[in-house]
């Protein structure tokens, strides 16, 4: 019993129990999860299964680093904005490859985005060992980016950076876009029923899906830029502990709602920092966090029959398998 209390205490102290754990650990981890969760929610709402947020994040990180390394000093805030914009553009372009493959050759985005993750990871490995490696050529990483291109800290003596504000803004903007704009409505309609969107709405579904994927990639790329400008200040291989994959669960758990993503991202960040605390202080393997995350997802999926994007994919696979051919005539 005392062992269990010890574990629970380690979890608590690692995640929320101390100001530094909460502010420098959990909140900092929640930032990329939230932004990536929004990216994935946008794609899934459009019926596009973007599994490549991890790769898009890495491309965003690469682009932001390149800008951060080369931007002339004295640009100030503009240098930072340039770096983040470069991250978003790179992520969008990376997703654009999958969008193009889908539009031109009918390649399923599930496959292409997964494959592009590996390409992105290997590209990053190559860059930090080759063209972008730090001058001493000892470590597989880049030099630190210029001071001016780093995100300011929100609280001094913590690691909490201004990316938090960007995450909140991205989430609110995505919600507003989906709920209030004609383009957001088209995106939701195309995802909820491609046939009705095309026929009743006269919506160009292929075009909407392609742009949704590019937008999703751009948001994921922005998350990569923020990670470099706010946390790592440099590019190296293990920049992301699989944020792009955890974010799929974050988005699904939030039922693809951009505002709810903020809550689930914080929850998942808590699981992860808590699990790290358990490992450090109580010797419990941190993979427990994965178990907790999986349980949370299963509970939500079991409770809610309204995950329209997920249900849609189940329905269509069932229809593909096809049982008896349907009666065409009464």
């Amino acid at each position, binding site marked *: 019993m005392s062992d269990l209390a010890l574990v629970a205490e380690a979890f608590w102290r690692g995640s929320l129990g101390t100001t530094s754990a909460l502010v420098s650990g959990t909140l900092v981890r929640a930032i990329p999860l939230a932004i990536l969760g929004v990216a994935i929610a946008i794609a899934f709402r459009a019926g596009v299964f973007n599994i490549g947020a991890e790769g898009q994040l890495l491309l965003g990180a690469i682009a932001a680093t390149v800008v951060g390394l080369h931007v002339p000093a004295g640009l100030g805030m503009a240098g930072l904005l340039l770096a983040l914009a470069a991250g978003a553009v790179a992520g969008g372009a990376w997703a654009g490859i999958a969008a193009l493959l889908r539009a031109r050759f009918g390649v399923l985005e599930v496959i292409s985005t997964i494959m592009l993750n590996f390409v992105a990871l290997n590209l990053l490995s190559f860059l930090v060992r080759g063209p972008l490696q730090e001058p001493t050529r000892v470590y597989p990483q880049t030099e630190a980016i210029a001071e001016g291109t780093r995100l300011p800290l929100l609280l001094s003596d913590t690691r909490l950076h201004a990316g938090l504000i960007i995450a909140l803004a991205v989430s609110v903007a995505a919600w507003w876009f989906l709920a209030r704009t004609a383009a957001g*409505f088209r995106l939701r309609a195309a995802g909820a029923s491609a046939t009705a969107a095309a026929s009743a709405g006269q919506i160009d579904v292929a075009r909407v899906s392609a742009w949704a994927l590019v937008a999703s990639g751009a948001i994921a790329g922005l998350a990569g830029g923020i990670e470099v400008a706010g946390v790592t200040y440099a590019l190296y291989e293990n920049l992301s502990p699989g944020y792009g994959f955890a974010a799929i669960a974050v988005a699904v758990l939030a039922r693809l709602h951009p505002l709810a993503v903020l809550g689930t991202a914080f929850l998942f960040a808590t699981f992860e920092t808590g699990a790290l605390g358990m490992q450090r202080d109580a010797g419990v393997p941190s993979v427990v966090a994965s178990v907790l995350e999986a349980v949370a997802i299963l509970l939500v999926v079991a409770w809610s029959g309204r995950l329209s994007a997920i249900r849609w994919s189940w329905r269509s696979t069932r229809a593909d398998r096809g049982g008896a051919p349907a*009666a065409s005539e009464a």
Partner: protein
Amino acid sequence: MTPSGSGVHAALEMRGVTKRFAGFAALQEVDISVRAGSVHALLGENGAGKTTLMRIAYGLERRDAGNVFLFGRALGVAHSVRDAVRAEVGMVHQHLSLVGNLSVVENLALGGRGRFRPGEVASTLERVSSESGLRVHPAALARDLGVVEQQRLEILKALSRGARLLILDEPTAVLAPSEIRDLLQWIRAFAKRGGTVVLVTHKLREALAAADDVTVLRRGSVVYSGGAAATNEEELGRTIFPKPPAAAASSEQLRPGDVVVRARDVTIHNARDRPSVRGATFDVHRNEIIGVAAVEGSGHRELLRVLSGRWPVHSGELELPADISLIPADRLREALIPSFDLAENVALRAAGARRGLLSWPAVRGRAAALVEQFAIATRSVRVPVRTLSGGNQQRLVVARELEHDVPLLVADNPTRGLDLRAAMFVHEQLRRAAARGAAVVVHSSDVDEVLALATRVLVVFDGVVSEVPGGGGREAVGRAMLGTT
């Protein structure tokens, strides 16, 4: 022709078969007897119950009452396809059920048991092919086969399982005239060798060319049954389309206005890039209700899609107005998004062209007004459309498409699945739209509905669009639909 003497069982015998779908009687006390070694044509218009009857015989559908005998053996109510196959019956569906990515041999093996031995299946294919005279390349992928070969493969599948009775559901719907001739010849030869065929069709000429016996269904009941030699096209045409009772309402007071649609020598290709409509020339005017009559597979679906502005013409000239309303046949797939609420579904119309922001309070106000005006039973405009009944869903579609005065309304089976009251309501709305100045183009599988609504009737037969002169009358329209004029 071999008369079924004592001791020789009919290949298929159905007695007093009744089937209801949600209270609606699709089949009522149907008797049919198919003699072994004969070709039996099963005729009737769309929705007469032909396919349902044959699905019951094949074990795909359960009957509510009646008996089914296959080669003299009684089959239980819950008999399965496996039982039917064991009784040496095979069915080829109107929509072929092949797996495109599998080869001919693999498709043939589907549904078998135990290990898949390609060599054995290939030799079975070879044997059945040479016995039947139907040739298909064994290594080809099913998706690379032409329609004719796909159909052959379906027949070979049935034959390789030992089928002596073949049920062919609308086998000629997808075939070209010369291919139809070949198929009918093959059917005759198959019967000569002792096989039995039930040919489900609504094409009279084919039926009479190939069949020994004919059974006609109308609204789920047998209205004619006898030898093919004892009847002719005209008589059968009258049995399939009898004189209707006088329609309650009529569209007679409508007088045509300006030209809205101008079609000159329009040719339409379907999704598989085959011609579906050839050389169509016609005008549609304001204040008109054009009824489109056709049997399934004639090209009318493609024509309606093009008139609704949702499909391009292949060649020819077509002038359409910019804003066209559409009431599609499949409301839950094409007209509505079931998970969206009523207001969102109202906003869906023409969403492709909208810019900027959406004002949801305004949309909800419009939706609420439509709910009021069209008497749609719902708690609120913010509940998902899937919670509404079919009739109320259709009211919503009609309400949305007629919210503004449009120059052209295209409707495909606008009353499918609706009860009489809801259907009358939809008819009334179509007439009102025409009275307000819209051109209405409506197709229904029910010829009576087309005639009740139309001020002018266009018939599509085998891709050719023609007007039935002088308003037509039921018999003339029926003959034109079957290509027997």
